[in-house]
């Protein structure tokens, strides 16, 4: 049902249950906000979205007020301007004005509002607490001195992700955003997904910046720098340089990396195709041999962190296949180095990822050194790559396109949708169909697994020979129900009614990962998703098992999926991790 109201005299009709803030947006009026985020429930902590309602003396918060028929809302007048200005001045009285040296300079929501409201002076006494930064995770940095207590990170961590690593402690003036029990973040349940960082409106939470490490290593002449880029990077990096979300800039990224000093540019999508070969074969084996089912995907390091902490009894359900990034790293330092006659000790393996958790994955355990060296030496997020591209004065938009280096740069359409929720499932189904039936799908688009429902499930008929019951979850907080179902069945000696389940920690999948360009909401997610499907659609080869470079890698090096060599280099094992390390 539509509700009619006016915003600043402009008539607007919105769905019942919408907020005044959403109605204002529809009327083309932007009400300032700091704590509001479309991913989250209204929190109402900043007070910037205050508005007036004609005929009422009460001041309302636009973010938390549902619309009502006939409302006449004033969003902007001189009095509201003054109140908002005072709120900003009060925030600035406890916020360090160190904008020039802040990671969020030019991208800070508080800074933008201060510019908009013409904050030129500080009328209030400043009381800025010097609190130590938390760099314990080697992926995410907490700088509580800059926190404006908007509550987004806490809501993201608790409601969206269900992780409960962050919480507010204390009260009033001494309230502080803090890891559980005031532990170092690394000892808390944090899964390093980085969603707190992408949702923080200021510079209080951000990725550990290692762009400088890359430039330093790339300049070292004795190193052979081999870089891989993840599927989700190509649909998002462009946003940092004026492209629309979802616009594919793959060829430009390859060129940019070469200009930044990469000797070889590979594609994590090759690793994704290898992952499907291994993970798909593992699934077929488990089904045929009555192994532990449902099989759970293992590509997402945030999810792996979560399951090994909160559901250690489901570790046996995890696919032993490494993530595409780790496979690509191991292959680079073995198969490729051997083929190229390059000493793997000299290879510096770098991965460009949409994800902060990938920074910790490379040090997870001894399996991440399966080549005898660190399989991946360094992970940079999409945001860090954008930063060093700018530092090098590269006009990204004007870059010519180039190709990835062969033979471990070629990829199928199935690989490039890995970054989208449901993508790993779809890619796996395309290959599992072939493994089970010996035939090829006439239409590789598996529409039943696509969409943005938080928990999607169904069944796919595999040529009348088998039924694959699947489950797809995105957003860590949405996994609990399904995981509890699997656990409950297990405790009764039964098994949950699924064969294969894909779980990605971030809402929308890796395309909206914690290392992606800021300003991600469902609209941006949907555009990046379309970009991934476009890349898949235009690919000549749509299935991982048809990728000629993959076939060659098995012929020349690995033998076959799940071979001993594959097990050593492309598979791993997981251990239970305590939820609280101290």
């Amino acid at each position, binding site marked *: 049902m539509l509700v009619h109201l006016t915003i600043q005299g402009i008539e607007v009709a919105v769905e019942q249950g919408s907020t005044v803030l959403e109605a204002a947006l529809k009327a083309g009026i932007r009400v300032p906000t700091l704590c509001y985020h479309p991913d989250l429930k209204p929190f109402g902590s900043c007070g910037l979205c205050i508005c007036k309602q004609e005929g009422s003396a009460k001041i309302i918060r636009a973010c938390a007020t549902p619309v009502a028929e006939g409302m006449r809302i004033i969003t902007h007048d001189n009095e509201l301007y003054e109140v908002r200005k005072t709120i900003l001045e009060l925030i600035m009285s406890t916020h360090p004005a160190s904008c020039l040296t802040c990671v969020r300079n030019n991208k800070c929501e508080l800074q933008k509002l201060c510019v908009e409201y013409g904050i030129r002076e500080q009328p209030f006494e400043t009381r800025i607490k010097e609190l130590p930064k938390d760099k314990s995770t080697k992926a995410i940095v907490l700088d509580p001195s800059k926190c404006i207590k908007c509550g987004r990170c806490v809501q993201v961590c608790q409601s969206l992700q269900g992780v*409960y690593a*962050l919480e507010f402690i204390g*009260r009033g003036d001494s309230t502080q955003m803090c890891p559980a*029990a005031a532990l170092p973040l690394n000892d808390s349940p944090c899964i390093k997904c980085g969603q707190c960082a992408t949702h923080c409106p200021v510079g209080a939470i951000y990725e550990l910046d290692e762009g400088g490490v890359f430039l330093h290593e790339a300049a070292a002449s004795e190193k052979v720098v081999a870089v891989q880029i993840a599927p989700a990077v190509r649909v998002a990096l462009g946003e940092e340089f004026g492209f629309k979300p979802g616009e594919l800039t793959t060829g430009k990224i390859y060129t940019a990396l070469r200009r930044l000093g990469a000797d070889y540019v590979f594609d994590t999508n090759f690793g994704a195709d290898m992952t499907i070969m291994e993970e798909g074969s593992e699934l077929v084996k488990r089904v045929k041999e009555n192994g532990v089912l449902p099989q759970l995907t293992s590509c997402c390091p945030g999810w792996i962190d979560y399951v090994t902490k909160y559901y250690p009894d489901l570790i046996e359900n995890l696919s032993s296949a490494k993530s595409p990034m780790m496979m690509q790293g191991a292959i680079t330092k073995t198969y490729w180095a051997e083929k190229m006659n390059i000493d793997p000790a000299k290879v510096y393996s770098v991965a460009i990822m949409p994800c902060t958790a990938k920074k910790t994955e490379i040090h997870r355990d001894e399996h991440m050194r399966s080549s005898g060296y660190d399989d991946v030496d360094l992970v940079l997020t999409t945001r860090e790559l954008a930063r060093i591209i700018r530092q090098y004065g590269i006009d990204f938009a004007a870059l010519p396109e180039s190709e990835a280096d062969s033979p471990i740069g070629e990829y199928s359409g199935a690989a490039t949708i890995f970054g989208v929720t449901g993508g790993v499932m779809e890619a796996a189904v395309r290959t599992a169909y072939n493994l089970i039936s010996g035939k090829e799908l006439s239409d590789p688009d598996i529409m039943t697994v696509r969409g943005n429902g938080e928990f999607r499930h169904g069944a796919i008929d595999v040529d009348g020979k088998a039924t694959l019951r699947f489950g797809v979850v995105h957003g860590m907080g949405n996994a609990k129900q399904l995981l509890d179902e699997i656990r409950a069945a297990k405790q009764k000696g039964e098994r949950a009614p699924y064969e294969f389940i894909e779980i990605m920690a971030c809402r929308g999948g890796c395309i909206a990962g914690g290392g992606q360009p800021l300003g991600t909401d469902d609209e941006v997610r949907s555009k990046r998703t379309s970009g991934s499907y476009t890349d898949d659609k235009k690919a000549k080869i749509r299935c991982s098992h048809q990728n000629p470079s993959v076939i060659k890698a098995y012929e020349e090096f690995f033998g076959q999926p799940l071979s001993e060599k594959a097990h050593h280099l492309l598979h791993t094992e997981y251990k239970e991790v305590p939820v*609280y390390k101290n």
Partner: protein
Amino acid sequence: MSQNLFSDDLLSFIDEWKDKPGNLIMVLHRVQSEVGYISREAADEVSRLLDVPLATIWGVVTFYHFFKLTKPGKYNIQVCLGTACYLKGGDIIVEELEKLKGLKVDSLTEDGLFSLQAVRCVGCCGLAPVMTIGGEVFGKVSKDQIPGILDKFS
């Protein structure tokens, strides 16, 4: 672990309240009255028994002044710094305790005998300034009475 940390009484209380809304503060009250404060071990145990994240417990415990995160002394001293007591010299009692025992607000003497809390009103403003030790109230306290009062507790 729970057998040592919490009494059977407390465990059955937690069990009774396990599924009731608003149980966390009730349980934490009982834990503090039994253990004396909310230790990390106690918080972990409550987290496990009620299936409430540690982060939430820490949020609650640090929000309410009533809950203590540090072990109290054998005798807990409360000095009132409410309006009446403050005007009558409550702060002088605090200073004197630091001078005599090296005791600061929210800390413990080295021998573990005394801990000190600053509180806002204990409900007998007519006796200002007021301090309580282990529940016993001392009114109209002057600086030179303090050593004598402390001597009663050992």
